[in-house]
């Protein structure tokens, strides 16, 4: 599992913008797309903003196409399911709106490092200190999770192989119970290690 997320390293204005500004900007643009009732003009303007975003962010139209391909099954779902209840033009307009919002959100994800977003989250939580929220603890929890995912994935792989070797097939119970028990043991070992490293 890659822990780099989907960041595409480029040198662009969008990459240099602070993560917090991009997130707020995204919310503003999404509200502008979603709140007014859909018109073909509005959707056209949204499409222009999306294309402009991929060009300004130096991500390129190939990346835009990759992002559309990545959500092709979702597009099928959001077109097919409402068709049971709604007329075709309404369904297409709604689907177009969802796709525009997704592609806009992807611009933020593609131009912002995971760590920048996590730092922005920690900063945003700082005013909550007076209510007993400890941003450092939350930061530690987030970092620890990133570290723990490959460890648990490794445990899962070993258990799967061990079970195949013994029975040749997989049962959910015989797989998930030891995965949970070993993972919780790992959690307790890690708590000891944090204490030993002077975390209180």
């Amino acid at each position, binding site marked *: 599992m890659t822990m780099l997320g989907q960041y595409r390293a480029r040198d662009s204005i969008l990459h240099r913008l602070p993560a917090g500004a991009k997130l707020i900007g995204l919310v503003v643009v999404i509200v502008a797309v979603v709140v007014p009732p859909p018109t073909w003009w509005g959707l056209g303007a949204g499409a222009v903003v999306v294309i402009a975003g991929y060009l300004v962010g130096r991500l390129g139209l190939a990346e835009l196409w990759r992002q559309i391909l990545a959500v092709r099954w979702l597009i099928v779902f959001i077109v097919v399911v409402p068709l049971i209840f709604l007329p075709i033009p309404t369904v297409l307009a709604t689907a177009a709106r*969802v796709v525009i919002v997704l592609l806009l959100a992807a611009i933020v994800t593609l131009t912002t490092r995971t760590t920048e977003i996590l730092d922005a989250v920690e900063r945003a939580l700082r005013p909550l200190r007076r209510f007993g929220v400890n941003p450092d603890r939350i930061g530690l*929890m987030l970092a620890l999770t990133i570290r723990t995912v490959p460890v648990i994935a490794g445990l899962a792989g070993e258990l799967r192989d061990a079970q195949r070797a013994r029975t040749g097939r997989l049962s959910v119970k015989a797989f998930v119970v030891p995965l949970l028990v070993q*993972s919780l043991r790992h959690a307790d070992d890690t708590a000891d290690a944090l204490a030993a490293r002077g975390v209180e």
Partner: protein
Amino acid sequence: MKTTLNDITRIATFAAIIAVLGIPGAVSPFGMAVPITLQTLGVMLAGAILGWWRGAASVLVLLVLTAAGLPLLSGGRGGIGVFFVPSSGYLIGWVLGAAVVGVIVHAGATRPVWWRVALGTVVGGMLAIYAVGIPVMAAMLGLSLGEATIANFAFVPGDAIKAALTVALTMAVWKAYPRAFVTPRQPRVEPTPVSVR
């Protein structure tokens, strides 16, 4: 509420477990015939095993990391976009769902009881998640609540199986590792012997 180091590592570990249950091929209950995601199973287990606030926190941690761009949802999905699709309500519903499961399983109990876990997974793991998921889907797709509820029935069989699995798994974990259900105030028992030579 003071978080202990055990709270922190268990929350992080359960967030990781939910992520790993989404890796394709990690677990495939019915061969590969039904591409079922076990992440909701992880959400129900988080509430049932960790209790309401740690369970909800582990889901929240997973969602924050996903928003930050990590591909932690089933099928390697990640990024802020996952919060702006018709199914996003279900993701937000996971937080509430884990909390409700935790309350029903843990409130006033010293050990998990199977019927409480069953009740918890139906009310928390299914109804609570639907309660957030259905209105969001309806709003995003322009459907009425009734229509969205009908569409939602596609998820019910899979979720019912996961709820039943959660009962069996929770009781089995209680037998194998009772410490899982209590936050240790005391230092832990004996470190596991790593190898016997």
